């Protein structure tokens, strides 16, 4: 055994787990105490619950319904630019929500490209504010995610099975029954729940495109209770409702499907023989449509950003955003690696239990935690002064589930590939970290650090609860500019923001993969 490693893992892992648990439980406890003084959430609260569930359900349904034919097309077609297409599908995950909204408005908004074309034809222009806009943005984010999840299922089908069906003379219909339906049955419920969970906690999109009596989510209602009416009991009550929703969905998701590994699987092409000319045309049409749907808003952000106007305070906001992103990345890496090592070292029921508990604890959305922290801090210190530290902390904690999904498969692989050998040779301590763990895990560490940095940089969540009017990060600045319809300046901020997020992701991801040549062994 690797003496000296296990106690360290146990110590750091336990500290990480307790820190996360405390960060979530303390706010929740405070919220619970506050709830007693509250008189229910009222009709407006119930309307918010209904809208939250409805938009999340519709978003998830539309995303996975569209993802099925798209994923099939990507799974069976080899074409020039396929690698680029796969990158485009990965992009929305680290795209700051507000930037996406800006790009979508440039295409689908009242003065967007589509509306201009309609007006030219003498037709009424589009108005996407409210439910349509929220759905559009959620599909923009989650159609790619669902496509990726399904594509992983398709790519896992052994090549022999398609050959076998070709030999048996199976029709496309037979192929659907024998291969595709089982894949869908295995992947769709999990994909639906992941997207549903994302959509009940997607604050920035609803802040930008929703609002009003007909399109307010629970999180938006919390924001309004804290920032506008300063009604702490109402905010506490709503936060508990949000927590219950998220916990319920997470529980179902954990029962239905264990979280899938997260990372760069080999999304290879499946050669098939049940092809027809119409199927080829259908797939080409689907893929071109998807490329336009995802690519045009990004191009609009680029185009308008380059010709936009430079607002005051952009440099400071950029500096602050990068500082927040890097601090929260360091913290996220420390928490994620410690906890993943502990779970991996305690395999079996204890490890599984810890993993499940972590997912459940972190089902609390940043808003729930933020509301509780606000109530805790408010009597002692102005929440405005704690805006950045709280943002760093919450952003880091909330990327831990992603960390587990990236690191646990990597640790398991390291264990089977080199850990026994290292044990046998007695390599322990720093030498083991340097020569065994780091070379094996650097690609995953870089990948996760990139995700954590980009997500934290683009996040517009808990910071909105705390930030005073004069404190600006890039997402806050952009949100305020968009709120006052200074779109040219917002465009520049958006471009800087997306460039910064992608640059951070790229730098970490490349840094991790650099010099490593056994990425997919």
């Amino acid at each position, binding site marked *: 055994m690797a003496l000296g490693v296990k106690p360290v893992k146990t110590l750091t892992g336990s500290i990480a787990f307790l820190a996360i648990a405390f960060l979530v439980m303390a706010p929740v406890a405070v919220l619970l105490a506050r709830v007693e003084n509250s008189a229910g959430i009222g009709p407006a609260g119930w309307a918010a619950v209904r809208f939250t569930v409805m938009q999340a359900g519709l978003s998830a349904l539309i995303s996975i319904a569209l993802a099925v034919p798209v994923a099939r097309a990507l799974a069976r077609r080899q074409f020039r630019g396929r690698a680029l297409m796969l990158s485009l599908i990965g992009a929305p995950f680290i795209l700051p929500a507000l930037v996406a909204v800006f790009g979508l408005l440039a295409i689908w908004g009242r003065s967007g490209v589509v509306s201009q074309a309609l007006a030219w034809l003498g037709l009424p222009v589009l108005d996407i504010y409210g439910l349509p806009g929220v759905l559009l943005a959620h599909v923009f984010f989650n159609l790619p995610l669902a496509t990726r999840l399904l594509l992983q299922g398709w790519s896992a089908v052994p090549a022999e099975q398609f*050959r076998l069906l070709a030999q048996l003379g199976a029709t496309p219909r037979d192929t659907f029954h024998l291969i595709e339906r089982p894949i869908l049955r295995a992947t769709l419920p999990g994909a639906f729940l992941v997207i549903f969970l994302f959509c009940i906690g997607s604050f920035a999109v609803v802040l930008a495109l929703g609002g009003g009596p007909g399109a307010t989510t629970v999180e938006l209602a919390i924001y309004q209770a804290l920032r506008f009416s300063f009604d702490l009991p109402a905010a506490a009550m709503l936060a508990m409702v949000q927590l219950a929703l998220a916990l319920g969905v997470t529980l179902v998701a954990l029962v239905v499907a264990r979280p899938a590994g997260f990372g760069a699987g080999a999304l290879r092409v499946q050669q098939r023989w049940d092809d027809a000319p119409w199927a080829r045309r259908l797939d080409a049409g689907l893929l071109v449509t998807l490329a336009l749907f995802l690519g045009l808003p990004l191009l609009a952000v680029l185009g308008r950003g380059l010709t936009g106007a430079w607002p005051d305070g952009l440099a400071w906001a950029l500096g602050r955003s990068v500082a927040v992103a890097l601090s929260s990345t360091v913290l996220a890496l420390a928490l994620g690696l410690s906890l993943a090592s502990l779970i991996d070292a305690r395999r079996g029921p204890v490890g599984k239990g810890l993993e499940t508990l972590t997912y459940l604890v972190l089902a609390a959305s940043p808003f729930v935690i933020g509301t509780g922290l606000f109530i805790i801090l408010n009597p002692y210190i102005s929440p405005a002064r704690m805006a950045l530290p709280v943002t760093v902390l919450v952003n880091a904690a909330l990327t831990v589930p992603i960390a587990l999904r990236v690191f646990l498969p990597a640790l398991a692989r390291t264990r089977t590939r080199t850990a026994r050998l290292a044990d046998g040779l007695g390599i322990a301590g720093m030498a083991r970290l340097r020569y065994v763990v780091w070379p094996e895990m650097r690609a995953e560490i870089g990948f996760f650090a990139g995700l954590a940095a980009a997500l934290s940089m683009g996040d517009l969540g808990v910071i909105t609860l705390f930030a005073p009017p004069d404190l600006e990060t890039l997402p806050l600045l952009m949100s305020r500019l968009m709120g006052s319809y200074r779109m040219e300046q917002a465009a520049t901020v958006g471009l800087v923001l997306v460039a910064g997020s992608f640059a951070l992701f790229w730098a970490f991801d490349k840094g991790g993969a650099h010099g490593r040549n056994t990425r997919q062994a």
Partner: protein
Amino acid sequence: MAVTLDKLEIRQGAFALRGDVTFAPGQSTAIIGPSGGGKSTLLLALAGFIAPVAGRVLINGQDQQGRPPAKRPLTMIFQENNLFAHLSLFQNAALGLCPDLKLDAGQRAQVHAALDRVGLSGRAQDRPANLSGGQRQRVALARAMLRPRAVLLLDEPFSGLGPALRHEMLDLFEKLRAEQGASLLMVTHNPDDARRIAKSVAVVANGKVDPPRATAELFADPPAALRDYLGD
């Protein structure tokens, strides 16, 4: 039916394989050679999964060029993944009769009879996950019997099995092949497999398919490529 490679040339990336040979009808032929030598690639090309860059595949004198896999008079059993995990053994075997699994009473009886022949009677409703490696290949054989074709292609289907079980499976395959009067081409890396059922053996090495030679004669006086592979 005789299988002929007429100046056949197959390419996969930088790898190339050439062959201009005929495999005799109505008997078992082993294809032997080093790993990566192109044995499996050859079978994939015969079955129509890889298009040759030059030359033709003839089966009983008929050019197979451009024929989709289902229209070729052959059945291939792969090294693994021959079964669908979510289907029962009965359903997996029945795919050989019709891939939409809509069977009449006569066909159902046929499937049960085939499962009996491969020694799996009574397990029709089991799932592949509950079977050993040898049992899984028996199901694939049952399916191949339900879809009688003139040529049977085997891509090392017994490579994971122990010696006794492998011999048993080889004998079973050879017996059923003889009953159907089919030709059998079997990729193997094991000379014992070839000695047990194959009348002739073709060496595939260095990008070339050698003409088959009588088994005993070949092993008594192996060519250089086979000697290097066998190592003695």
